[in-house]
């Protein structure tokens, strides 16, 4: 799933909400994202932390399926920061 904005733009984002799903096994990060996106307004950004390298593709596919915008991924220390803009 290609990112829609650059890494420097991602790094400048302050997400409306951060969901920490580190250590959670599939489908945990996706379910946390589902819960988390309900806590931000349409057009705002949710950041998901996951230590599972498969999560980014899962969140990308999920975003496309349900109408959110997958913005991209930044590396953390032992985890990844995944950014999604709520679309509906």
């Amino acid at each position, binding site marked *: 799933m290609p990112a829609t904005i650059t890494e420097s733009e991602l790094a400048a984002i302050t997400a409306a909400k951060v969901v920490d799903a580190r250590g959670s*096994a*599939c*489908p945990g990060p*996706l*379910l946390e994202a589902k819960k988390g996106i309900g806590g931000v307004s349409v057009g705002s950004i949710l950041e998901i932390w996951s230590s599972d390298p498969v999560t980014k593709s899962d969140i990308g596919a*999920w975003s496309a*399926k*349900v109408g959110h915008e997958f913005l991209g991924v930044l590396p953390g220390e032992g985890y990844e920061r995944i950014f999604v803009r709520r679309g509906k």
Partner: protein
Amino acid sequence: MADTEKLVFMVLHGPAHPEHATLPFVMGCAALASDVEVVMGFQADGVELVRRGGVDGLEAPGFPPLAKLMNDFRELGGKLLVCGPCIKSRGIAPDDLIEGAEVVAAGRFIAEITSATNSLVY
């Protein structure tokens, strides 16, 4: 084609096969999170999973505990349908089943499957 997508998962494996028992709930939760309606149908040894306490301590390697997944599944609005003859032959009473499990027969399963976008058998 209905406006809402629907998947039916037929679950045939019980606690003796933790991975086979867990995968439909992994997929079912992901489907519900993706705004897809999900019906989980239990037949054969699969009915043991919806017996109260039936998944306690059950955890397939690499996946969350099955009890957690089942709770997530129900919280997300998934439906649980259980084969009546299958529980009867195993000495399981309807009152022994977890909350939300509905005892049905073949006709109901067929109605759910034929009205679904797709069906999967585990």
